């Protein structure tokens, strides 16, 4: 399998996204915003449609749309006094409706669209991989540097706000990270399953982890393992890669949920 260029590229892209998606998803899950990835995914869909219509790179337009959508959700949530899930619903449905309208006016309700909805990791090019590697590295570095602040804001947002921690800016950072992750993961698992890759490894890790830090690290390991194992299985069993990766992640949840929770090392 490794002698094939397209599989090497796929495994590399899968590995990066497999680590990044749960690392970002961790902060969403801890804030009970698991579905934000999905909401952003729907806006990204509108972005893809706009790209097809305007004949520019759909990944780029999806990235722009996802960032705008992520920031909009965050702004509605924090400033508008709209409840989180209502803000999400608003952006979610506006995104998908705009996407449908744009796509049909581009006359592109066909195979081309499918690869964004369900992923097309086997068609990743060197140029795609470079983009995924650069943005992925920036995302992971941001999380590495700001981990303590992002985690602290989850622990006690109000207390941190009183002490002058720039909570709004940290929240927007998470929203932008989520948006970039969605746009990058689109090629790997598809818009419909992006959020699964951000969320499933985290809740799987949560079954056995003993702290925030261990949850984060374990979820990244599970994401990486799911991406590599899923791709390998899909190659030999001739299954769709995106769906297989997500099923492996879901399977890891089942296995870990059955395992006895580990205790903190005494």
């Amino acid at each position: 399998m490794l002698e094939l260029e397209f599989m090497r590229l796929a495994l590399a892209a899968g590995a990066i996204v497999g680590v990044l998606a749960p690392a970002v998803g961790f902060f969403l899950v801890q804030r009970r915003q698991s579905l934000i990835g999905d909401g952003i995914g729907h806006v990204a869909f509108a972005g893809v449609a706009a790209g097809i219509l305007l004949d520019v790179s759909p990944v780029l337009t999806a990235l722009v749309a996802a960032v705008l959508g992520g920031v909009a959700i965050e702004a509605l949530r924090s400033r508008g006094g709209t409840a989180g899930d209502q803000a999400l619903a608003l952006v979610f449905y506006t995104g998908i409706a705009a996407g449908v309208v744009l796509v049909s006016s581009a006359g592109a309700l066909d195979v081309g669209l499918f690869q964004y909805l369900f992923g097309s990791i086997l068609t990743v090019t060197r140029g795609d991989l470079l983009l995924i590697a650069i943005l992925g590295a920036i995302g992971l570095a941001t999380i590495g540097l700001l981990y303590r602040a992002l985690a602290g804001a989850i622990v006690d947002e109000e207390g941190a706000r009183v002490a002058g921690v720039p909570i709004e800016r940290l929240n927007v950072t998470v929203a932008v990270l989520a948006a970039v992750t969605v746009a990058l993961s689109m090629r790997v698992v598809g818009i419909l399953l992006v959020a699964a890759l951000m969320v499933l490894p985290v809740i799987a890790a949560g079954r056995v982890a003993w702290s925030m830090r261990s949850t984060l690290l374990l979820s990244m390991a599970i994401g990486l393992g799911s991406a590599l194992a899923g791709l390998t299985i899909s190659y030999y069993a001739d299954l769709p890669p995106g769906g297989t990766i997500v099923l492996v992640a879901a399977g890891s949840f089942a296995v870990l949920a059955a395992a006895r929770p580990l205790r903190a090392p005494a």
Partner: protein
Amino acid sequence: MHVIPAVALEHVDFGYAPGRRVLEDVSLEVREGEFVAIAGPNGGGKTTLVRIVLGLERPASGTALLYGEPAHRFSRRRTLGYLAQRAELGGDAPATVREVVAAGRLACAGLVGPLRRRDRELVAEAIARVGLEEVADAPLRTLSGGMQQRAFIAKALAGEPSVLVLDEPTTGVDVESQESLAALLDRLHSELGVTILYVSHEFGAVERFVQRLVLVRRGIVFDGPPRELPHVWHDPSHAHA
């Protein structure tokens, strides 16, 4: 010589919805280094009052000042410590006691990179102060409600605040821990000069330490030394003027 008070509310009115006042014409001045207990019936406006003091809510009319600056634009926020009522872990975070308390160093230690040694020592000290050393690395969720509350108290202490606002910190905490918290606050107050606003129904535990008791019920209905409190009000839940 006029010393700038730590907290100054002047003729503050406040309501969450138009036409329904929660606080009316509240004036309150707290000097630096005072230890004040705030009591009153449920819904009396205690939480609202301290949120205005901290600049989390803005008065509809009147002014709220912290060290002479408008509270919502206060420039030295890292000197403020706040334990919200019914503080609980945001979301589903599997945080340990140490991770919770470390969050209290965020404002002082800066946002980027890991905590330095000195900060980690302060975190360990705060954990020891509330007697949670033995469970420092246990997930908060596995502890009793009272122990979780003590972890949040440690978090507020870890930031070494010079103004500490605790909103019902001892709900669900046993009498022994209430007494030890009261003694701890008394030490912070007398040794370090920390200004403390302590909101509680059961101010019995702090009664002998505070110089001032403020009873809130839409307005301030009593403000003075606890021993001067009219007898009918001694249990603040019976404050029906």
